[in-house]
């Protein structure tokens, strides 16, 4: 209000401390070529919001036919008439990143995933036909709600339970009687799962090479071409930076055959690739 009056009044300086004023926008250049822009604005509830954006700028030069270039100069019309060039927020937005990788046996993979997801997601379904059973009187209520809670002792599982339950408890071992704890290696199916896991790693490691000192500009395809000349490559994994999508400097190459891997290890170790000398060795187990 005072702004309308005498502008030179020193009292107006107070406005600088006004909580409604917004700090200026900050731009910080990062090491990896990205920019961090910190700006402030008010949201719908009139609260101050700090917005931090990391922006990576890439200049893409494109050669288009003259008609397309000419169309670029067209004025907006209809509902957009008179609007400045550039997308407006009310009609255009950018969605969440979607990872789309076509895969050969997509259907089988998706089914497996769904099965896993289904088991995890539907705890309710799993417990749907389980009944509440009282440990004291075996009635259909929680033990804490049992009317005989104070007068009766809990029924011993070992004596009242089915033989199957007994057997399982023996397997559980430890001889602690009522203890329900079962060590992981004794759990049903637990041992098998563990073995399988170890087995898988071993098999993988047999013919997997670790390649280090890989150029930042390396591409999976180039690596595949490079290593494929020694035998059938089953997998190429090139570690990439999540933000910039640049290679991180190491890669894993899996061969179908250990012999091919050995040969490749010998031949490519010390090979010059994109100004850097590759170092190739057999991948070690991560533990």
């Amino acid at each position: 209000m005072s702004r309308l009056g005498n502008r030179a009044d020193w009292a107006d300086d107070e406005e600088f401390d006004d909580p409604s004023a917004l700090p200026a926008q900050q731009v910080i250049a990062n090491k990896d070529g990205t920019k961090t822009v910190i700006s402030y604005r008010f949201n719908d509830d009139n609260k101050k919001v700090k917005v931090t954006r990391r922006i990576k700028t890439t200049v893409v030069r494109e050669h288009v036919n003259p008609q397309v270039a000419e169309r670029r100069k067209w004025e907006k019309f209809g509902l957009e008439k008179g609007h400045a060039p550039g997308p407006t927020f009310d009609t255009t937005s950018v969605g969440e990143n979607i990872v789309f990788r076509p895969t050969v046996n997509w259907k089988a993979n998706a089914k497996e995933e769904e099965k896993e997801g289904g088991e995890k997601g539907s705890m309710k379904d799993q417990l749907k036909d389980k009944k509440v059973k009282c440990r004291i009187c075996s009635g259909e209520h929680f033990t804490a709600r049992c009317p005989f809670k104070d007068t009766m002792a809990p029924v011993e599982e070992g004596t009242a339970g089915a033989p199957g339950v007994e057997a399982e408890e023996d397997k559980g071992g430890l001889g602690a009687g009522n203890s329900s704890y079962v060590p992981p290696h004794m759990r049903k199916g637990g041992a098998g799962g563990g073995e399988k896991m170890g087995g898988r790693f071993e098999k993988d490691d047999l013919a997997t090479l670790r390649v280090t000192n890989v150029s930042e500009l390396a591409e999976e395809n180039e690596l595949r071409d490079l290593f494929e000349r020694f035998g059938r490559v089953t997998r190429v994994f090139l570690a990439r930076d999540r933000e910039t999508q640049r290679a991180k400097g190491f890669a894993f190459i899996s061969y179908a055959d250990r012999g091919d891997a050995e040969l490749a290890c010998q031949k490519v170790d010390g090979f010059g690739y994109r100004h850097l000398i590759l170092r190739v060795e057999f991948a070690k187990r991560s533990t």
Partner: protein
Amino acid sequence: MRPILLSGHERSLTQIKFNSDGDLLFSTSKDKIVCAWWSANGERLGTYSGHQGAVWTVDVSPNTTLLATGSADNTVRLWNIKTGECVKVWDFPTAVKRVAFSPDGSRLLAVTEKRMGFLGTIAVLDINYDGTYTEQAAEPSLVITCEDSKATVAQWSFLAKYILAGHEDGSVSQYDPKTGDIVENIQIHEFDSAITDLQMSPDRLSFITASKDKSAKLISARNLAILKTYTTDTPLNTASITPKKSFVILGGGQAAMDVTTTSARQGKFEARFWHSIVGEEVGRVKGHFGPLNTIDVHPAGTAYASGGEDGYVRVHHFDKSYFDFLYEVEREHLREQARK
């Protein structure tokens, strides 16, 4: 890939179309307006307003000067793409469900609905590109009447030799665009499951049909032989052939009236990518909250857009993994060719 969401429509999308260079994208919806977008960044170039009812269909002339739209207000309108002005209105007795320019742009076909005692027809209109485009023929140069089952979709074959039409009863027919005679009619899809989309391959030698019988079929334009069948688990609304990679993209979902009772997951509102030759599904792209009504692929094969019942258009520019994907067979074939 990060999809660009275009939210210029207030009701469900009916058709989207890239122009021949792929720099513009046109979308129509049931909310009476037609939008033009830059496909690279999703900026809206403008809107074409004038229709009095839901706009069912859109097509762009091959030289990107004229836009044709068909609507439930029983008209076909021709627009000057650059200025957004309507240059011509043709009145029909019933709603227009599909329009398509011939490969050279000299003719436009319009599929009209069967309603109020009128039979479904396919009308062919001659297009004049002189001056301000306003001097167009008043009457269609040819009207094909579909006596058995109304046509729902239609397209021009290679060199505009045939008009290919998909019918409500699941059959596909070839018409001669000079005389209007029916050349062939073949029951391609299950009887009485309407064909919902028909799109040509880039060379117009084959086309793909999508149907409510949950399958899409790749068909030869020459003799209507079925080349491939892609069977899915949901009614399909649209199907498209991708240039550059040999994929087809299928879109569909549970009918709109059943959607409220099903979750997005069960509704199957995904764009499905199939390898067109191997005939195997290779991936899906999620994102829409409702059935996919229409899909179109960038003519260079670098992007695709889908329009849904949820009122959104999603433009996806493919990233590297899409172009890198090859079957082992294809990879071997490439290596062999490189050796030669």
